[in-house]
C-alpha cells in the first residue's frame, strides 16, 4: 500500500510539469495583455510598451518560463501583476471559503443522493422511483445561478431567514459560517445530488440484476441485507468514481456560485485573474488546484482497492 502511494506520488511530478507547461503556454500565447488593461484608455502604445517592460513581459517566452519554474522550485509562486501581493498569500486567503463550500456541498449531496438512488433502484418502476428520477432530472437541468436566484428570492428576501451573500470564516463562529454557506451549498448540492442519485440508481440496478444477487435472494437473504451487503458494496466502485468525477463538476459550479453569492474563493480569484490576464495568479491557482485534484484522485484510486478486492494495481 505504502509503495503504491509513493509510486503514485512520484508520478504526479510529471503530471504537474505537464500542467505547468500547458498552462504557461496557453496563457502567454493567448490574446489579451495585462499591460493594456493597466495602462487604460489614455495610454499610447509607448506607454504600454514601457509598462510591459517594467512588468518583464517583453522578455522571450522561454526566459520567462525558466524563471517561473526556477521560482517554483524554490517554492515561490510569484506576485500578482496588478496588486503586487504574493500569489501564495492570495491563494491562502481564498482557500478556506472554497474548501468549506465544496466539502459542505459534497457531504450534503452524498448523504442525500446515495439513499435516494438506492431507494429508487429498490423501488424501480414504482412512483417512488419515478418521483425521485423526475426530481433529479429537474434539478440536474437547472443552471446553478437560476437555483441560486430562486433560493435568494425565497429565503433571503421574502422570508429573510438567510443572508443574501458573503462569507463568514469558521473562526467567527459555526452558526454564521453555516448560515452564509447554506444557500450556495443547497444550490450546488441539488445538482450534484441529482447526478449522484442517478448514477447510484443505475449502478445499483446493474448490480441488482447480477445473477449472484438473485442467488442471494434465492438463499432467502432479506431485502436490506441484499441491498446493503451485496448491492451497495458492488456498486461502490462506480459510485466512488462518480463522486470523484463530481468533484470536478462541483468546482465548475463553485466558480459560478462564488460569483452569485459573492464568496471570495479560489474560483472567483481565477476567473477574475483570467479576465485581467494576471498570469502569475492564474498559473499559481491552476497549479495548486491541479495538485489538490491529483491527490483526491489518488485517494479515489486507493479506495478502489478497499472497495473491490478484484481490482489490483
Amino acid at each position: 500500500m505504502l509503495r503504491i502511494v509513493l509510486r503514485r506520488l512520484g508520478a504526479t511530478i510529471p503530471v504537474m510539469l505537464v500542467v505547468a507547461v500547458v498552462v504557461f503556454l496557453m496563457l502567454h500565447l493567448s490574446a489579451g495583455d495585462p499591460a493594456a488593461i493597466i495602462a487604460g484608455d489614455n495610454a499610447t502604445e509607448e506607454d504600454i510598451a514601457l509598462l510591459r517592460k517594467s512588468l518583464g513581459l517583453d522578455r522571450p517566452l522561454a526566459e520567462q518560463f525558466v524563471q517561473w519554474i526556477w521560482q517554483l522550485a524554490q517554492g515561490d509562486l510569484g506576485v500578482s501583476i496588478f496588486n503586487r501581493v504574493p500569489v501564495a498569500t492570495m491563494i491562502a486567503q481564498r482557500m478556506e471559503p472554497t474548501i468549506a463550500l465544496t466539502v459542505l456541498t459534497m457531504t450534503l449531496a452524498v448523504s442525500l443522493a446515495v439513499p435516494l438512488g438506492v431507494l429508487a433502484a429498490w423501488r424501480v418502476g414504482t412512483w417512488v422511483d419515478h418521483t425521485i428520477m423526475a426530481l433529479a432530472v429537474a434539478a440536474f437541468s437547472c443552471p446553478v445561478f437560476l437555483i441560486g436566484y430562486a433560493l435568494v428570492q425565497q429565503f433571503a428576501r421574502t422570508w429573510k431567514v438567510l443572508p443574501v451573500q458573503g462569507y463568514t470564516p469558521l473562526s467567527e463562529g459555526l452558526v454564521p459560517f453555516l448560515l452564509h454557506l447554506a444557500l450556495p451549498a443547497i444550490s450546488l448540492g441539488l445538482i450534484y445530488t441529482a447526478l449522484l442519485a442517478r448514477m447510484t440508481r443505475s449502478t445499483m440496478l446493474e448490480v441488482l440484476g447480477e445473477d449472484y444477487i438473485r442467488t442471494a435472494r434465492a438463499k432467502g437473504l432479506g431485502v436490506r441485507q441484499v441491498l446493503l451487503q451485496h448491492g451497495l458494496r458492488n456498486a461502490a466502485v462506480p459510485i466512488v468514481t462518480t463522486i470523484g468525477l463530481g468533484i470536478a463538476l462541483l468546482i465548475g459550479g463553485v466558480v459560478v456560485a462564488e460569483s452569485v453569492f459573492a464568496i471570495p474563493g479560489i474560483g472567483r480569484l481565477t476567473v477574475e485573474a483570467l479576465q485581467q490576464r494576471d498570469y502569475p495568479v492564474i498559473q499559481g491557482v491552476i497549479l495548486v488546484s491541479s495538485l489538490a485534484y491529483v491527490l483526491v484522485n489518488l485517494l479515489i484510486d486507493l479506495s478502489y482497492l478497499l472497495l473491490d478486492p478484484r481490482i489490483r494495481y
Partner: protein
Amino acid sequence: MHNRRNILAGAGAAALLAGSLAEGRAQPKKIKTLKAVVHADLKIVDPVWTTAYITQRHANLVYDTLFALNAKFEPKPQMVESYTLSPDGLKYTFTLRPGLVFHDNQPVRPVDCIASIKRWSARDPMGQLLATFITEMAVVDDRTFSMTLKEPYGLVLDSLGKATSPPYIMPERLANTPPNEQVTDPTGSGPFMFKKDEWRPGNRAVYLRHPGYVPRSEPPDYLSGGKIAKLDRLEWIYIPDNNTVLSALQAGEIDYFEAPPLDFIGMLKGSPDISVLNIDSLGVQGLIRPNTLHPPFDKYEGRQALLHLIDQAEYMGAVVGDASLYMPFCGAYFLCNSDNETAVGSEPLRKPDYAKAKALLAQAGYVPGQKIVVLQPTDRPQYNAATTVLISGLRKAGVTVDVQSADWSTITSRRTRRDPPDKGGWNLFITTHGGPDTSMPVSNVWFNSKCERANPGWACDPELEKLISAWAREPDRAKRHAGIEEIQRRAYVSVPYVPFGQFFQPVAFRKNVTGVLAAGQPVYWNIDKS
C-alpha cells in the same frame, strides 16, 4: 482594621470604575461603518500607474488634491490656501493650508507636491501638456512653492484640479517612484486611510477615518469644499453579480450601491427603504470609435457615414432603457449640461439616413462585400448592447459585418493593434467615457486627434489639434467658450468618434444613509449613517 478594609474596598471600586471609564472613553459610541458595493474590484492602488475609475475613486479617499472642481466646473483651492499669478502670467505661487498631514503623521511639504506633480505629468495627457509649459517648480518656504511657465497657459488650475486623474499629493519618498512602476504604499493626506492589512483583492477594501485631516471650512461643493469624514469605517465590497447586490441592498446587508443596473432604477425608486440619487449631472457618453488607419474609415467620408447610421434613441433604448436616465438627443462632443455644450455641426447625427450613409461609404471607397470588423465585448452588457445596435445599423446600410466577439480584456489588447482588420486588427469598437474630463477638448482622451500619439483608432486631424491648442492657451474662460464651437464644427468633419448618446448612472442607498454628495462620482466624505 475596619477603616482600612473600607479604604481598600473603596480603592478597588475606584479602580474598577476608572477601568470601565477608560473603556467607555476608548469606545465612546458604536463604530459607524458604511458597506458600499463598488462598480469594480480595486486591484491597483496607484492612481498614476492606472487610470481605472475604481483606482481614481480610491485615490479620492486616500489623497488630497491642490485644487478641485466646484459644481460649475471651476477649479477651487483645496489643499492650497492661497495662490498668486504674476502679472505677466508666467509665475504661479501656491501656499498650502497649515496643518496638512499625511497618514503617517508627517507634514505635507511643498517638495511632496512638486514630486507628485512631476510623476503625474509624466503619465496624464493633460499633465503632459502642462509639463511642456513648465520651466521650473521651486520650494519657496515651508508651505509655499512656485511654478514658472515659459509662456502663459490657460489651463494650469484646471489641470491641477481635474476631476479624474488629477495630481494626487503623495509623500515625496513615494512620488519619486518612476511613473511606470507601481506605488504600493497607499499613504496620502486625504480624509480616509487605506487599511492595507484588511484588503482582499477581489472582495473588499477597507478605509478608516484619517484623524489628522483638517477639512476646509466651506461646505462641500462637487469635489471642492470641506471633505468631512463622518464615517469611522468604510468597507468597499465587490460583488460581481448585480442580482445579488440588489438583493443584498434590499435585505439591508449593504448600505450603498455605486452602480445599480439602469433597468432596476424604477424598481428601486419604488422601494420604501431605498433612495436613488443622480450624483452626476454630466453622466456618461457612449462612443463608436473608428480605426482611421484602414479603409473605409481612413477617409473623412467613411467616418461621416457612421454619423448617418445613428439613432441615439435606439442606442439609449438598448443600453439604458429607462427614458428618465438618458438624453433624448445630445449632439455635443463635450457633453450636454456641461460648460462646453453646443449643438453646432451635429445635424448629420440627428436622424438616421441609410441611403446617405451608403453613398458616403461608397465615396470613401467601400465596396459591398468588404468585411468590416466590429469588436463585440461579451462581458460588458452596456457595450455589448450598443454594439448589437451598431451591427444592425451597419447591415441596414449594406455593410458586411464581421463580428469578433471576445471578452473585454482581449478587446482592450486587440484594439491597440495597427494591423489590417483581416489580420488581427479592427475597424470599429464601442466604449464610454464621462465626467468633466470628457467635457474639455484637451482632456477628452478619445477626442485627441494627434494621429500616432492618439488613442487606439489613431484619430488624426492636425487642423483640429491646432484649434484645440489655441483654445488651451486662451487664459480667458469666456473667450475659450467661443472657441468650442469652432472645434466641434471641425470635429463633425474629421469625426474622431461618433457619440451615440448620453446617459446617467445614479447611485442607490438605504434610507438611513444621509449626506450623499452630487460630486459627479461616488465620494464618501460627508456621508453619514444613522
